[in-house]
């Protein structure tokens, strides 16, 4: 059963994957070994596909490194839910097809709590109850649904922007 991983405010990309563990320094094949390697070492030992990160404001602040959200995707994180995201992290996650939801759920869910992500509604199912998630703009969902920006560009030959104001 998928679980919640609870984090605080301002989780920076140096915590998600320290620069010393970048694919440049190690290898792309090893990337899945390094998310939160120093900030929260049990994460990578216990994380399972479908798990969800719930965090505080400004998640992913810091560097442009796409390997931070990529490492979270590689280990199977299904979505990140936080009241706000740093801008480059937001773009990188969008581009990788890793869903982000902008809402503060820290008061409602606990670390380790069992949940199921329902992408269609969208909602998190907790103990038989649905915690609704905000519906992202249609163009963002479209990028996520095709699996990321590269897949979108290959399919449509354009950038995804339009109509969202």
């Amino acid at each position: 059963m998928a679980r919640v991983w609870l984090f605080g405010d301002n989780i920076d990309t140096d915590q998600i994957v320290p620069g010393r563990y970048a694919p440049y320094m190690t290898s792309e094949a090893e990337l899945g070994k390094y998310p939160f390697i120093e900030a929260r070492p049990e994460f990578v030992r216990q994380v399972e596909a479908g798990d969800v990160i719930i965090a505080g404001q400004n998640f992913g602040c810091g560097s442009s490194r796409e390997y931070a959200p990529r490492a979270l995707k590689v280990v199977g994180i299904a979505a990140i839910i936080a009241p706000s995201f740093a801008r480059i992290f937001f773009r990188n996650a969008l581009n990788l097809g890793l869903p982000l939801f902008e809402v503060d759920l820290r008061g409602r869910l606990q670390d380790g709590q069992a949940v199921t992500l329902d992408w269609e509604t969208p909602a998190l199912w907790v103990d038989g109850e649905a915690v609704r998630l905000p519906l992202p703009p249609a163009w963002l969902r479209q990028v996520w649904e095709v699996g990321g920006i590269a897949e979108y560009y290959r399919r449509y030959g354009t950038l995804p922007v339009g109509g969202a104001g």
Partner: protein
Amino acid sequence: MAAKPPGEGPFSPATLSEQILSHAAGQRVWAGNLVVVPVSRVMTHDSLTPEIIDALRESLGAQHVHNPDQVVVVIDHVAPAASVPTADAQVRVRQWVAEEGIRNFYEAGAGVCHQVMIEDHLVAPGDIVLGSDSHANAYGAVCAFGTGMGTRDIALALASGRTWLRVPETLRVLGRGRFLPQVAAKDLSLYLCGRLGLDGATYQAVEFHGLDWLTLDSRITLCSMSTELGAKAGLVPPVGQAVQGYPVPQWLRLDEGASYANTLEVDLGALRPQVAVPPEVDYVRPAAELGNVRVDQVFIGTCTNGRLEDLRAAAGILQGRHIAAGVRLLVIPASHRILRQAVAEGTLGTLLDAGATVGTPGCGPCVGRHLGVLGAGEVCLSTANRNFRGRMGSPEAHVYLGSAETAAATALTGCITDPTEL
């Protein structure tokens, strides 16, 4: 409605970001609009170029870059290579640069990417410039719209020559007066981080007004540090001695009456040297109030504060003196050109006489990969831009951030020291 040049018609007045993005989009756009725009340059560095090549060729299926003359590649993050994996990656980058016919290629030792971009006039006022590095905001020092992006966004821009952006709202910082002696642009940046927080300008642009007298070196510091507020771009209006020699388009100018999301006035004459305390850039305190913080290493360098102005400020404090016993002073000029000038004018000699050691121009230990990485329990006062846990090496090390002046004063005493109190 037909497009008109911003600043001279019914679409005026506009912020600097709105002017630049309107010009590129060919129509008046406002904060909040989503636009697709052509980019003037795309900069990539050694740390991410290998995965950008993979994204370009494998994920996007693009055989070649859209226009090799738009592309700048710099080896600076691990320069020269520190290990077999980084050396192998750099071999791959050089091969790709040759295959693509990219002429703007900078080898290890040329300097930090943002510094060489500005020094070599690869950015111009009014340009839209993307970097595979979050501190690409630095290009706003010459009033370019510089912004950092990750692997797939950069690969898309390389493949298409374009990018998408949400036109940002603008936070205006209005400087009043001038800095006191030994107070620097870095202190203003850190003060803003402390006051506004790490997400104080997320998704926004920051414009720095009232600073027409500020040098180019200091403008780069301010714009580069706007990244630490979460900003998409940081821009200084293109006036003053600092931008002489950079072509300013007629349509790019400060519009009185442009609409700002917020304005923050700062009395520069009241500003004291500031220090960011680990582990976040917005834990900011006046240097004089820190108490007795002993340091093991002082690092003067990076895209934030490795310029000639910084080296001169440090040399001015260290002239005829020697750093404290037990302290290592590491100086890494931000570019080869700065290193040469510092040698020629004697600034580097002064620093060496004071006990400094010098590293290859580039990022140095800022990202914790080589040339001055910290061990557990060590304390460093750095002129860089980030002090996150594990940033410069061991997660048990402690990184404080300050100006070059504060760095020099700290090297002299061995404890974090307010340079105005020496």
